[in-house]
């Protein structure tokens, strides 16, 4: 039993050293070391904020960048906006360019193009000591908890959103009747999770029967054709249409109009694209689900800003908050107006509140 005393001694001497270091840094008030993840705390005005998304030409990512700007403005900074046109190589180039500069107080809120793009971004940021928050895409075995400056990974639970709209659809058709489902690209995680959500909802709403399910590959045009075919196949038995995204829901709405059934069949989707939100507002669509893009744009920068300025210590962030599902919102006719114009709430971005929307740990 001569191992334990040795390791105990090692731990003691390490903690002693840490205490001494901490003491030193406290004495050097306003100096350059409050030991957050091994690097110095930054003056708020010295923090550099970077938001990176695919492009500014779709409403969702435009609202993301606008949310980032709103947060930056609230702390007297500006956000550097980067877009990579859905091109993985371009994204990596932009990241290495940013990391080649001054990375001491750098905060990045990044939407990786795909799962495989996350690893090099994380490694680069870790080496440079830049604070990083990623969203949507990461491989399952890559965990923020294993890194010092990769603060958090935020994503959304597709099973939950699929179930939310499934339940909304069941309510809209009065709890009984036939529905049809339009699936996304069958081999994507989003399509699989959302459809599992629908199946969960069907277990709960026993009066609702799934008449048919077809893949329309997240496409408006394919959804139009498929829906028309399914409407002739099942006729008036179809009371509702569940679509795995809003584009397909909008295609289904066109199909209903062409079949002379507009308003007689309830339609739900996910993503809250502007056309869908206005359709929900107008009552032609029953529900959609929003991840709140402007919050996503602000929150990544806010978490990074709090860590960089020392208000949030990396080691204090609960394990469940290092990779989590964020809360998403069901949009129905009642609240559609609030979502028609995306806006941010500054209180969401205060350091004590940045993890308020954690809906559950990412498993």
């Amino acid at each position, binding site marked *: 039993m001569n191992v334990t005393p040795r390791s105990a001694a090692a731990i003691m001497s390490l903690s002693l050293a840490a205490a001494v270091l901490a003491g030193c840094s406290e004495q050097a008030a306003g100096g350059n070391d409050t030991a957050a993840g091994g690097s110095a705390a930054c003056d708020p005005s010295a923090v550099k904020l970077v938001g990176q998304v695919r492009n500014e030409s779709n409403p969702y990512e435009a609202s993301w960048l606008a949310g980032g700007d709103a947060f930056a403005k609230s702390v007297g900074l500006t956000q550097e906006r980067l877009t990579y046109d859905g091109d993985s190589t371009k994204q990596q180039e932009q990241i290495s360019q940013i990391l080649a500069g001054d990375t001491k107080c750098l905060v990045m809120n990044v939407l990786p193009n795909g799962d495989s793009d996350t690893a090099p971004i994380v490694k680069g940021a870790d080496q440079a000591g830049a604070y990083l928050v990623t969203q949507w895409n990461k491989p399952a075995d890559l965990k923020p908890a294993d890194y010092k400056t990769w603060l958090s990974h935020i994503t959304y639970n597709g099973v939950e959103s699929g179930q939310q709209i499934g339940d909304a659809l069941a309510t809209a058709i009065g709890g009984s009747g036939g529905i049809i489902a339009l699936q996304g690209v069958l081999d994507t995680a989003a399509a699989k999770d959302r459809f599992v959500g629908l199946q969960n909802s069907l277990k709960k709403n026993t009066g609702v029967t799934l008449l048919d399910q077809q893949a329309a590959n997240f496409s408006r045009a394919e959804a139009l054709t498929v829906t028309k075919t399914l409407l*002739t*196949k099942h006729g008036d038995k179809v009371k509702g249409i569940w679509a795995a995204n809003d584009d397909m829901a909008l295609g289904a709405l066109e199909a209903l109009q062409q079949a002379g059934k507009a308003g007689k069949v309830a339609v739900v989707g996910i993503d809250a694209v502007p056309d869908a939100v206005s359709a929900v507002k107008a009552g032609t669509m029953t529900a959609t689900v929003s991840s709140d893009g402007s919050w996503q744009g602000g929150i990544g920068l806010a978490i990074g800003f709090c860590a960089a300025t020392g208000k949030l210590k990396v080691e204090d962030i609960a394990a469940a908050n290092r990779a989590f599902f964020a809360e998403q919102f069901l949009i129905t006719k009642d609240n559609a107006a609030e979502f028609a114009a995306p806006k941010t709430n500054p209180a969401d971005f205060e350091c004590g509140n940045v993890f308020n929307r954690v809906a559950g740990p990412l498993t």
Partner: protein
Amino acid sequence: MTVTSEVVNAPRRQSRRGASFRDAGPPVALIVIFLIFAALSPQFRSTDNVQNIVDAAAVLAVVTCGITFVLMMGSIDLSAAGVMGACALTVSLLVANNRNDNDFGLLGIAVAVLLGCAFGCVSGLALVLLKVPSFMATLGMSAVGLGVATLMFAGVQPNISDTMVKGLAIERFLGFSYLTWIAAVCILVGWLIQRYTRLGRYAFAIGGAEEVLLLSGVKVNPYKVAVFALAGAFYGLGGVMVTSQLGAGLVQAGDGYDFSAITAAVVGGTLLTGGRGGILHSAVGVMLVMVLTNGLVQIGVSPYWQGGVEGLIVVAAVAAAVIPQRRRNQVVK
């Protein structure tokens, strides 16, 4: 295919019996497949569903009309997706919409079709003047079209409010939507061009034996450009029709139509080597493809299987159709 690299084929034997056997393949396949689905599914043979199949075929039929002329000439055209996207955005921004105050109605449609025609014209000029193979020229044109469409898209999707344009997909005449009648007129016009005009006859001749035409002193280049321009106009109209169906101008309006149209044309008996087939063949091919997609859904084939099953049936249908002319179909090599 450039003028100089055109393959010269030995004079073919023309057997009347062979010709009729060859032409009968696809229609027979269409009837057989239709009957099989009709036997398996009562919904499939309902009037509603037959109307639905014909309506769903409208856009593909128009695009296939365009591509058929190019294929008859022995060239290939992959520009449909881009040209349709650009024309879809153009028409949606020119008729009454939520982005601007334009309300040009029919004129907007005409401009979109002319734009498609211009795109085709550029492809054709690249082929005859710059000697770019049609495969590359049209693929490039498709990218240009998508680029133009993305510029016009500018982050906000144009939704059309023009009742005339939207009505084309919704209003019906004798049980079929107006789009279907437009497609029928396109097939008729295409057939008349193919049958009775110099353009149509030369397109056949260029595909069959360009060398012979050249030696006879025919200047083929203007006809080549005209064929691509004609095809572009059909794609432009296809883009307008998609916009009418979806009620919005989408950059992806023509997604997948390039290859579906080539598939439909080949299934119908138009050869990729040129000189064979025609508009009516392609129309049969379009119906075959649409009956197949619709039928697989109606008889309840799982979506996880559909793609594969559809592919297999298409390959089988083409194989059956080309067996009588195996020698001629050099692309098979």
